[in-house]
């Protein structure tokens, strides 16, 4: 009955299908014959009964016997290696739980060793980590393969699963199984370079220089003189040289807004955004300022301190498929003043989260600032699409044009609020202004 209770929730059509698929993967992994060997056996069967036995072909008689014996020996070595690797690896890693807190881009020495019986003829061993949140770097020394991991995504891990494939060099046999390691890993988002300007709003939203008052910031650009510009900003040397009135415009006057609501929307490719969220929490010290509200997807609460916030950001990984859903739950807890200064840290890739965000905007009639975090150092060069002729004759990969995708996302988001692109490596923020990026 306990068993029934335990698995009751899995007895849905989807659950059963999942179980069948999992079972199939296990069985397929342990089934040692490949297509090559199945065809080879069929071929040998045909040759034996139609040529050797019927027509006494002495050459093929020897060929089939060598193949059969070789196949049997190869299969034997593969099975033996599979058992050996499984047993020895399990034994070698029997004790200890890897406990570590790290962050994206860090270095984790997992201490997990996979046995590599190099002395086995025909057999090669490949292993890979099933968890997608890590880059795995393995080196083989003598009988052991050792690894270190580079986290590429935040999350909490209780187990790390590695698939080990034992196969022969002829491609006749292959056995795959999974080995798991008990761990207690907490991978936080990477600490990004943070500039306050990313979370500041303009006092005047036009982007023009302020004709009066004391402008803040540096004078950043030159433009033609316009009526109303203070004469002290005119560059007279330029005028003397070119007879044109040019002013050096100050950057838009801005004001720090401490009354704000920042929400982290999880989704695909949200790691940079998570990194920005973490930096925001670290920089603003949210516990001191009650007028600052921060929440992350999945938690359905406003965070009270930085630790709690980072924890929520980590846990939001499991809510990527329904990112933004928590906005409507958290929004009633936020003051109306903060709601008018709403910052949404959104993923780089459009997903279902956008629908939830739209619903939030429609409900609260707010115009949020979308913070799009990118890593300029990781930005791929612009993709050159292969020509039609090349595509006709050659196989080409469907390479994603990240730059174009980002532009499309900015364009989409700009319809619902202002968009700010922040580089997590430098902290530089740029407001999106409709295709001029």
């Amino acid at each position, binding site marked *: 009955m306990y068993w029934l209770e335990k698995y009751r929730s899995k007895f849905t059509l989807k659950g059963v299908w999942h179980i069948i698929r999992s079972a199939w993967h296990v069985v397929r992994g342990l089934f040692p014959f490949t297509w090559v060997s199945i065809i080879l056996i069929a071929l040998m069967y045909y040759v034996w009964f139609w040529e050797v036995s019927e027509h006494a072909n002495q050459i093929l008689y*020897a060929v089939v016997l060598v193949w059969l014996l070789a196949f049997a020996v190869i299969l034997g070595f593969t099975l033996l290696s599979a058992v050996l690797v499984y047993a020895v690896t399990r034994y070698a890693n029997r004790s200890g739980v890897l406990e570590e807190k790290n962050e994206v881009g860090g270095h984790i020495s997992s201490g997990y060793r996979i046995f590599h019986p190099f002395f086995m003829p025909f057999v090669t061993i490949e292993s890979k980590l099933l968890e997608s949140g890590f880059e795995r770097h393995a080196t083989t020394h003598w009988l052991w393969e050792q690894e270190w991991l580079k986290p590429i995504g935040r999350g909490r891990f209780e187990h790390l699963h590695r698939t080990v494939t034992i196969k022969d060099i*002829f491609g006749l046999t292959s056995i795959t199984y999974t080995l798991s390691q008990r761990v207690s890993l907490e991978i936080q988002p990477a600490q990004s370079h943070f500039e306050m300007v990313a979370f500041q709003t303009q006092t005047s939203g036009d982007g023009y220089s302020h004709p009066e008052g004391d402008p803040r910031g540096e004078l950043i650009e030159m433009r033609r003189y316009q009526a109303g510009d203070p004469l002290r900003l005119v560059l007279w040397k330029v005028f003397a040289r070119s007879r044109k009135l040019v002013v050096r415009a100050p950057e838009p006057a801005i004001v720090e807004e401490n009354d704000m609501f920042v929400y982290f929307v999880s989704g695909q490719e949200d790691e940079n955004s998570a990194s920005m969220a973490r930096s925001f929490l670290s920089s603003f010290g949210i516990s001191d300022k009650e007028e600052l509200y921060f929440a992350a997807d999945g938690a359905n609460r406003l965070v009270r301190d930085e630790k709690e916030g980072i924890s929520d950001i980590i846990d939001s990984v499991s809510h990527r498929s329904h990112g933004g859903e928590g906005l409507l739950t958290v929004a009633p807890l936020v003051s109306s003043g903060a709601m008018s200064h709403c910052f949404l840290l959104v993923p780089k890739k459009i997903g279902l989260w956008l629908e939830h965000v739209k619903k939030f905007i429609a409900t609260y009639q707010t115009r949020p600032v979308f913070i799009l975090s990118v890593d300029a150092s990781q930005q791929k060069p612009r993709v050159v699409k292969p020509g039609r002729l090349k595509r006709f004759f050659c196989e080409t990969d469907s390479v994603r044009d990240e730059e174009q995708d980002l532009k499309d996302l900015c364009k989409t988001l700009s319809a619902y609020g202002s968009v700010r692109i922040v580089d997590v490596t430098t902290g530089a923020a740029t407001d999106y202004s409709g295709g001029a990026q």
Partner: protein
Amino acid sequence: MKESIWVQILKIILLSVSAFGYTYPLIEGVGHIIVVIAVVIASIFAALCAKWRIRTLWCVLLSAFYIAVGLSGSYLTLNVFGMDTMRATIQMSRFWYFPGLIFGIVFLTRSLSLRWRTAQLIESTFIVGTLVYLFFAHRDFNLQNPREFSDYLYSNGYDPIEIYRWMGIGLAFLSLPMLFGKTRPGKAIYSIIVLAIIALLVANLLAESRLPIHIEDPLGLKNNDDENEKGDKSDGDNDKDDKDKDGSGSNSDSDDDSEQGGGSADNNDKNNGKGGGNSNDNQGPTGNESPQPVAIAVFYDEYEPSDGIFHFRQNVLSAYDGNHLVSSDYDSDVISVLPASGSAVATPLQNEELHTKISTSMFLIKDHSQPPQVAMGQKIFTIQNPDPKLFVSAYAVESLGMTMDLTRFIGRHSIPADWSSEKVDHYLQIPDDPRYKALSDIIVRQIDPRFIGDDIVKAMYIKSWLEKNVFYTLKNKHIDPDDPTASFLFGSLRGYCVHIAHSAVYLLRSQGIAARVAIGYAIDNKMRGTGSAVLILGNQAHAWPEIFVDGVGWVTLEIFPENGDEPPREFVDQSLESLFGELARDDKSGGKAQDPTATTLQVPWKSIWFSLLALVLAALLGCYVRKVVIIVMGYSCHNPKHIYRVLRSNIFVWSMYGHSWRKYSTLESFAREEAGSDSATAKLVALGSAAKFGAQLNSNDVKKALELLPQAQKEASAHTTIVRKILGWLNPFVRI
């Protein structure tokens, strides 16, 4: 699927050799070079296409184009260029047809296998196919083919079977690396060595083994070993078993009931029954391929059968069980089982005065559960098999052969007076069908009044009637579940030996003549060579009637239908007959060498295995010597320049005991973690590092190192369990 560059080079070499083999009989001279160049270019081109990721479809179309160019060469030569001379065609074949064809095939296989691993099997098959194609003619035990090759081998003391098997082993060995993918050379070489040992093992296993041949019975004549072992205990009661074996009975080992035919032409007719004996169905009278030899008989006495036919009888069917004719205990004059050892003797029924004694040796190329014996076999005893790779078994037969014509026995009765009524009933049983008696009465009604009532004359008339009225054909099977013989005899009269023999027996029995069906092989004396060896082919299986003549014994009554649609039989290949005859006489050269007692070359298997073992032992010994040398060299260091030897000796001992420094990033961290920062090992490592980084060391340092070495090794020993230490010393492959 990507392949390492060295794998690709290996494959190009193998494919080139293979292509050379395929075209060897077709072109000559410069053509071979062009073909090899075509293979190389096709392989490189395929590799480039894979690199440029040209779509598979285009590769297939491109190769189809090349193949089409190759194939259309003949047409273009004759019709477009108007070069209709043989010389022009030969020239074009060198430069166009075969290179084009080979280019297309190699390009296709290489392109596919560079994409899908499964397609590499095509390449393997291509390689294997080379020698199979070149020596295709040797199949079906046609060991005289290819003649030039066969003659060379035999006359030089080689056994062609052994050579063909070595070829097969070599091919398999070469074809498996064609399945290599992206493999490290070290692993590949190691695996190839193991493969080579496997190949040697197979070669050794095959040295005396005989190729297992599956035999089907085209006549549908049941050969049940159990039946033979039992003798003929099933006196007609065992319907189920007998249904399958009522035919004229073949000698094959086939266990496929559905293939049984012959005999009483009952259920055998649903099969492709043809006569007696056994042979493969594709080589029988209807087969397109050349018939396979099944046995060779060597005669030691002059014997010329009276009717010109050598009958090799295997069994007889005489008991009518209500449905079929089956063998029975009454036929104890027939030896239907080959004794495992010793001899088997038949119950003497034949009058020796009226027969000639014949001594023969039989050598079975295909296994027969019922041993063929020429004429009336009286005694069988096993003899030494001269070539176990070729012959399944060998036995000598003492037979009695009839040399007199049947007409000489006119006036004799068929059934002796001393036969019991049960025996008489046994040999006179026929189906419960009045038509047999009615027909035989009509036939014998025509007998000259002077001979009315004479059994021999009646038999001759029935034989004559059948010869005139039967149409011999293999096309009519008479698939009649009740009585196929009636279907034949009272129907179209179109059938084959099985139907004819059974019809004759029923007609003869209806006239009170003891008769039975004999099964085996029949060889026309006119269609064979002149030597004393008679080669029996699979398509010579036959069934014929025998009658009993009082005072004479059983006499063969061969029926020769005057009409038929079967093509005349071909002459037996005399060179093959002669070759098998000589091999059966234990002349290993098949009569090709001057000295018939010369023995063939033997592979020194014992020496090979001993050499391999010695090689492995020497390698192991070398590994142990290396261990000792590394350790000892540490103690024999006197030069500051060689101080690293001391360190190496120490690290080696640590590694041997299972403490590899490779688990650590540096030697220093290894020494610190494993032995402690104040240990002798750590000090030695520090000295070694100093030497490595160019510190000027003097003899005092060497002395100090030599003092530290025993201490450091004691440290290693102290950190290791006794079991691990023993294992460490036993391990020959310690790595520093």
